[in-house]
Structures are given as C-alpha cells and as structure tokens.
C-alpha cells in the first residue's frame, strides 16, 4: 500500500464480547454473517468460572467457554448487542454473558469481490 494513503479506518466503533457455553459460538457467528452482514468476528475458547453454575457438583469449578469478539460501527452496536443477546439465549439460565466497550478506531475489513473470478 502507498504509505501516503491513510489507512481506511472506522472511528469510535464498539467491541462486543460474548461469553457462551462451549460449542455455541460458531452458530452465532454464522447467523451474524447471514442475517446481519457482519463478516469479521473472532472466536476463542477459554475456561470460565462463575458462581451461577447449574448444579452443586460443578459449583466453583471451571467450564469450557466460547468467547466471541466482534467490532461493529457505533450506529449498529445496540442492534447487534440485542440480536446476539437473544440469539445466543443469554437471557436463559447459564446462557453466558455479553458486554460492550468503546474502541478508538478499527481497520476496515472487506471480503474481496470474487464475482468475476468465479
């Protein structure tokens, strides 16, 4: 890239982080792509510990969790936050946790146009 050209950025976007039970993340990411046209997400796996566990045996133990991180424009943040909240059933017991935080700027990610190639 020509160093004179400023990198395309989106200013003041939001980062939404979702902590979900194991194996729940991929379906959410696919739905974000097909229904909300969000083409870039990160998923990683971790271990989570919470007091709100489903039974006495696992109380205080770690459980595997999926973590999704998605950056969206500020105008769409509330819409996407709400969408994920209900789509991932975070409103159900042991459904997970979602939070949103401000970001200063983000690079623009575009899927290459392959219509001529295909």
């Amino acid at each position, binding site marked *: 890239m020509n160093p004179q050209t400023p990198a395309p950025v989106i200013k003041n976007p939001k980062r939404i982080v979702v902590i979900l039970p194991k194996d729940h993340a991929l379906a959410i990411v696919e739905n974000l792509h097909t229904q909300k046209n969000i083409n870039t997400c990160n998923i990683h796996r971790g271990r989570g510990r919470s007091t709100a566990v489903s039974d006495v045996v696992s109380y205080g133990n770690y459980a595997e969790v999926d973590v999704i991180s998605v950056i969206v424009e500020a105008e769409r943040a509330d819409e996407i936050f709400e969408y994920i909240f209900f789509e991932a059933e975070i409103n159900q017991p*042991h459904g997970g*946790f979602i939070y949103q935080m401000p970001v200063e700027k983000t690079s623009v990610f575009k899927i290459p146009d392959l219509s001529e190639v295909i």
Partner: protein
Amino acid sequence: MRKITVLSDVALITCIVQRGAADKIIVAAKAAGAQGATVYFARGMGVRERLGILGVAVDVEKEVINIVVSSEQVERIFEKMYFAGDLDTPGMGIMYITRVEKAATYIPPEILERLDTAPDNKEENK
C-alpha cells in the same frame, strides 16, 4: 415482550500472567467480590527478551484473565489481584481496567422483581 436488563457501571479487569498463575489470582478476585472469571491461553513477548539470561525465568506462555465487576468494586478487586499475582515483581505480568459501556446476562426473575419494587426504581418504572 422481550426485554434486556442492562448492567451499567461495570468495568473489565484484564490480567496477563504466566501460565499457571491465573488460579490464585482468580481465587483472590472471588474473595474480594468478583462473581466470575474467564481465562484463556496466549503467548507473550516483551520483558522476557530484555531480561537477557534472566529471561528464561519468565514463561512465554501466558494466561489472560478477564473479569467483569461493578465499578464500585473494581479498585478493591484490582488491588487484590495485583498482589495475589505478585505483579509488583518485574516480569510477572500486567493488568489493566477497561471501561465497559453495558453488560447483560440472565437475571433471575425474583431479583428483577426486587429491583423493580426498590424505592429508588419505583419512580423510574412509573
């Protein structure tokens, strides 16, 4: 109608330490009032290279701890975690607080009911 009860006044504590050090930090955070924690593995670099031969004592594999806590508790939990992880020792790790705009999770109906009938919220709910 579907409704989200949004938690505001929360903060995210992120703590990056050497692999194996996370558990005692989380125990300290929970003792100080944190409700949960998420941990994942990562690989880090920085001080290890600058320490020269002493750098072998710093593990390249890291654990990253994420804890969301209320703003009221954040300073206390941060301090407890800091000392539990010996972060005042060079090379042990780093931690920071990020402002969270909003958060949401499942809230049991009985707690929601209690919140709705609280004197402070009655006026707002009218």
